[in-house]
């Protein structure tokens, strides 16, 4: 479960709030899609949930653990797939996963089992002994996904996870997201691919100019049930421009 209460953030170099009084709760076993135009505050929100940025005000809880008060315990519950693929390029894939395993305290045997499982799923097994610098964009993305799952997180956060993935891997990723939710874990992901959000998510939230402008199930957001999520998104986010 993720709970954000009245969270705000202004960057040091900016005059406007990147996130403004965001209150949101994502339940266990739920896939939550986070939508918004460029610069709306999606990545800032994700960075605050993952502990990369500190909010100026408000509180964030991960499975009831306050992130500000107990950051280590809170972070250890989270698996994070960033959007920039800044993985350590001069390491081999397996070295990076070993590093992540050590940081999250995963025993070797369990780590190997998880790596084998996910590497087979994403057809990465043969590439793990290669330098990450030699990977394609999609392969780095797959490695980030595997790294985010090896410690079996209770909360899985994905920032634009489908970018660069081939159709098979995208399919596997969507299946994994559903499997995680079915296990009772929380999946929070941001995406620009509205079709995917429409098909995969149990609930969606739309952020614009740092404020949450809509949050509910897709059916509830669509008043008459016929409007596409795309038109709805365009209508909601056009107001603030």
């Amino acid at each position, binding site marked *: 479960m993720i709970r954000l209460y009245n969270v705000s953030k202004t960057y040091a170099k900016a005059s406007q709030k990147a996130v403004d009084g965001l209150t949101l709760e994502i339940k266990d076993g739920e896939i939550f899609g986070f939508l918004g135009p460029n610069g709306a505050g999606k990545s800032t929100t994700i960075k605050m949930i993952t502990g990369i940025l500190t909010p100026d005000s408000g509180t964030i809880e991960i499975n009831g653990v306050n992130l500000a008060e107990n950051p280590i315990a809170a972070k250890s519950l989270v698996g994070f797939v960033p959007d920039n693929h800044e*993985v350590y390029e001069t390491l081999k894939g*397996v070295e990076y996963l070993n590093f992540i395993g050590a940081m999250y305290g995963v025993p070797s045997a369990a780590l190997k089992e998880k790596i084998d499982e996910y590497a087979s799923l994403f057809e990465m097994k043969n590439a793990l002994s290669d330098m990450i610098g030699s990977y394609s964009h999609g392969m780095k993305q797959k490695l980030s996904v595997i790294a985010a799952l090896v410690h079996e997180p209770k909360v899985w956060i994905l920032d634009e996870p489908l970018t660069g993935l081939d159709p098979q891997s995208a399919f596997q990723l969507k299946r994994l997201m559903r499997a995680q939710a079915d296990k009772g874990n929380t999946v929070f992901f941001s995406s620009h691919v509205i079709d995917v959000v429409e098909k995969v998510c149990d609930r969606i939230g739309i952020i614009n100019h740092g404020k949450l402008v809509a949050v509910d199930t897709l059916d509830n957001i669509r008043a008459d049930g016929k409007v596409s999520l795309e038109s709805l998104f365009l209508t909601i986010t056009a107001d603030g421009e």
Partner: protein
Amino acid sequence: MKKYFALVGMLFVQQYKSRAAIKLNNKKKRGGTAVLYVLLAVCFAPLAISVAVGIYFLGKLFGANAYMGSFLLLICQGLVLMFGIHAIISNVFVVKDADKLLCLPVRAHVIILAKFTVAYLNELITTFVSVVFLLLPFGIGAGAGVGFYLTLPFALFLIPLLPLLVGTIIAMPFSALIAAIGKNSVLRTILRILIYVAMMALYMYAMYSLGFFTGANSGNFFENPEVYIRDLTQDMEERLRGVMPYFHPDYMLMSSMVATSFGDWAAGFFAALGENAMLIALLFAVSLPFCRRILAMSVEDGSARRKKTVGAYKLKNRSVVREFMRVDFKRTVGDAQVGFQSFAGITVMPVIVVMLYFVLGLSNNGNASFLEVMSISPLYQAIAPMVILAYMAFIGCSTNVLGLYPVSRENKSLCILKSLPVPFGKILLAKVLLATAVMLVSDFLSCLLIVVLFGVKWYYGAAMLAVMALVGFGSMCVTTLLDLKEPHLGWDNFNQGLKNAKKSWAAMLVAFLCVAALCVCSVPFIVLYALFDGWYYLLLMWVLDMGLGVAYSAVAYKVMNGKASKYFERIEV
């Protein structure tokens, strides 16, 4: 031309810009920076002034001599080349933005020209410092005329051209060799360090062969100083007369600067301009045919040649700190931008020890060398290790890039560290331990050389190493905290990120204060040893120094650990 100037402007601004934002109280920040600069000025003014005064007297000795003047120009260029060669490589040959630039609707040669221009502009900074501390005092000492000072600004712009050409000629095959090696990152970094050591050795050999260190062929200075200095001057001038005409652009430039008539000035000045223009033409002739290949090399560097291996791998359970140190080391050594900078510092102090040995250990016409004279003294074993320890602390702390930029070198990957469920104090401890370990490699080599070459007793060498381990750890804690307070992130060119950073200066200050404290505490024991000749005074001195080292490293670690989280959270990536 519009595109060229736009590129130059963008590239120049880009390298000094940090993408990280830190929320700070601006007044406090400015105050701290001002205090730092004042302290630095107080500490380093004596060194800078002594160099300038030495050159002033050289000018007085030689007068407005074109050979000696052009030799000083050459020294300036040597310094620019030494400090600038890797700036050229990282600016032009191993760049992270090649993929962004190659897709622009700009010809490859315009991109290369813009990159050379930026490298040149950076070299101007080093040139300016060398002109102020070498050429200007020489002119004053030599009583040079107005022409010297009027031509000096032109010299500032002409001096970096030769280093730029030589640097490019060295860097091109070198970069091709690096690219040919492929993905063996350790070998690549070692190769870079070897080239760096070779360049330093070449520079020192050139100075040595010109008789800069060896002295005149005539008798003893103390017997007849005037004759000695006269012979020394004549001997050096003779040597320079034979060598400097080969560096014709420098010789012509200095001829114009020290000219006494307008005709001589004009002849020298325009010849120097023409010859330097030819140098630029040569630079472009050498590099432009390969410009697209040069840029492509940077792109291919990170993406090509993925070897096909079957996925057999081993996993090992390690502690967080150990695993972090291992990964940090592997990442750094393999990074084309950071690797060389981080490990080349290991070579500096051992090279200086060897250089000192050659300078002090050379005998003159069968007379005992300075080192031989010193080593006979009963105080040698007490003072020599302390003096060299001071050098080691000073050089070791200020050249250890691993410890100076532990956070800045994370660059965009810092967000990975921030998302890990590991106390940041542990991550910093791993970084400090790695930096100290690398510094100890250099210190071990230096101590070994000091024992072998300088005849310092092995147990003093061991004591020096122990003190350096403690002082190094403490200093790395301080420099790590400084970098954490204000990291330089989002760079495309790590080398340039370092140039405008004040952290290496701050590290020198930290080392200077450490050394000063150690020396002040050691002096009474050396005096007691000199008066009463008891070995236990030296034992006590080293025990005290180690105690101070333990106290310093413990306090520094505690301060760093206490502030780590606060500073870490402020960084916005």
